[in-house]
C-alpha cells in the first residue's frame, strides 16, 4: 500500500448513521406471519424490526423465524409469538468498526439502529457497511485521482526541449505556526506527479528540515524554490542572513547547533538538520557567508532506476 493510499484510508471514519438504511419497514406485534411473509416478499427484505403501539422497538423477526413457523404449519401465529426479543442494536453515532465487531461477535445478520433517545432510526446490515465504505472511498479518491491524473501527464503532454515546474514559497521568520506548509505542499505535488512514495518522503523530510532552518535561524526568513522535471527535483533554499559561522562543524559534528534554548523546547535544534538533509538528498551544495546569507541546493532523482 502506498503512503498516498494510506492517507485516504486514514480519513475514512464512518458513523453507523452514514451507511444505514433509513427507510425502515416495521411490523407490529399483532400482525400475522402470513402478513409478515407478504411484507418480506414485496419489500425483498429478510428481517423486520417489530414495534409496539407506541412505535418503540420491542423485537426483530427474520426469514428464519418465518421458515420455522412454515415448517410447523403456524403461519397464522402473530409476530409477537415468533419474534426474537433479544435485541442487538447499534447507535447511529457508533463508529462503523464498532458495528462490524458486533456483527462478528453476535453472528446476527442485521441490527436495528437507535438514536440517543432510543428511537428506531434505521437498519444496518454488513452489506450496508461495505456499500458505504466503497462509496466513500470512491468519493474520497476521485478528486485526488483527477488531480493526480492531470498532473502526472504534464511532462508528457507539454512539448518543449526541457519542461520543468517551478514552485516558489516565501517563508517568514519565526512563523512556527505555519512552519512546514511549504514542505507539505511540495510533498503533495510530488505525490500528484506520481513520484515513488519513498522518494517523496526523502524530499519532504529534507525540505522540512530546510524550511524549519529558515524559520529558526534566518533573520528575515527566506525562499524555497522547487524545480521539478521528469527526472529530478531540485530544491533551492536561500536567505539573506545571518549565515552559518562554522559550516564544517554544522555539517559534520553531531550535536553542533546554534539553536537558542527557547526553540529547543519546541523540539528542534539537535544539531541534526543539515546532516539529515544530506542523508535524504542525492546531491547537496551549500554556501554560506556570515552577514550575507546561506544558499542550499539539493537534488533528488525521481526514479530509482
Amino acid at each position, binding site marked *: 500500500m502506498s503512503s498516498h493510499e494510506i492517507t485516504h484510508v*486514514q480519513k475514512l471514519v464512518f458513523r453507523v448513521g452514514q451507511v444505514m438504511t433509513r427507510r425502515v419497514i416495521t411490523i407490529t406485534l399483532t400482525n400475522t406471519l402470513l402478513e409478515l411473509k407478504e411484507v418480506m416478499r414485496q419489500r425483498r427484505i429478510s428481517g423486520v424490526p417489530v414495534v409496539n403501539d407506541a412505535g418503540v422497538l420491542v423485537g426483530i423477526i427474520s426469514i428464519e423465524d418465518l421458515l420455522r413457523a412454515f415448517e410447523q404449519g403456524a403461519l397464522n401465529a402473530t409476530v409477537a409469538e415468533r419474534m426474537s426479543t433479544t435485541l442487538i442494536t447499534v447507535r447511529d453515532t457508533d463508529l462503523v468498526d464498532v458495528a462490524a465487531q458486533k456483527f462478528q461477535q453476535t453472528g446476527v445478520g442485521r441490527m436495528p439502529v437507535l438514536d440517543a433517545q432510543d428511537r428506531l432510526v434505521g437498519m444496518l446490515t454488513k452489506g450496508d457497511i461495505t456499500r458505504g465504505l466503497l462509496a466513500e472511498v470512491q468519493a474520497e479518491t476521485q478528486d485526488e485521482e483527477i488531480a493526480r491524473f492531470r498532473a502526472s501527464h504534464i511532462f508528457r503532454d507539454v512539448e518543449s526541449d526541457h519542461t520543468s515546474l517551478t514552485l516558489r514559497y516565501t517563508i517568514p521568520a519565526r512563523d512556527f505556526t505555519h512552519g512546514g506548509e511549504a*514542505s507539505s505542499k511540495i*510533498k503533495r505535488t510530488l505525490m500528484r506527479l506520481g513520484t515513488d512514495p519513498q522518494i517523496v518522503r526523502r524530499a519532504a523530510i529534507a525540505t522540512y528540515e530546510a524550511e524549519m532552518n529558515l524559520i529558526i535561524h534566518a533573520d528575515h526568513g527566506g525562499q524555497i524554490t522547487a524545480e521539478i522535471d521528469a527526472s529530478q527535483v531540485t530544491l533551492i533554499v536561500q536567505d539573506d542572513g545571518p549565515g552559518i559561522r562554522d559550516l564544517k562543524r554544522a555539517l559534520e559534528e553531531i550535536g553542533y547547533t546554534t539553536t537558542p534554548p527557547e526553540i529547543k523546547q519546541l*523540539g*528542534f*535544534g539537535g544539531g*541534526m538538520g543539515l546532516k539529515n538533509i544530506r542523508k535524504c538528498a542525492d546531491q547537496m551544495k551549500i554556501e554560506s557567508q556570515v552577514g550575507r546569507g546561506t544558499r542550499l541546493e539539493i537534488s533528488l532523482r525521481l526514479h530509482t532506476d
Partner: protein
Amino acid sequence: MRLGQVIQVLSGHALNEFNHAREVEYGFETALLSDVLAHAKPHTTLIITEIVNPQVIRTAEMVDAVGVLFVKNKTPDAGTLRLANEVGIPLIVTRLGMFETCGKLYAAGVQPARSSE
C-alpha cells in the same frame, strides 16, 4: 497492534477521528523532532511525545507516521488539532508518563523505531 488497542492498553483516548484498525509496529519516543525526521521508519511508526505544537503534526506528516501519542495528558490546541485533521494524522492522549507508556507498548509487542544507521 492496532491504534484502537494502543488506546485500550494505555487507558487513553482519541483526540480526533481515525481508523482504529491501523497497524502500529514501531514506537518512537522523543523530545526532539529532528531525531524523528532522521531516524523514523515510515507508515507503521507511532510518535510518542510531550511536544504538542503544530510541528509535531508536520513531522508526522513528513515521515508518514501512523499517528502521534501524547503522554502526561498533554493536549494540543485547536489549531494543532485542525492541522492534524487536515493532513490526516491520528492523535491519541494518555495520562500515563513516558516510562510507563513505552513499557506497556513494548510489552504489548510494539518495537523500537529507531532504524539502525
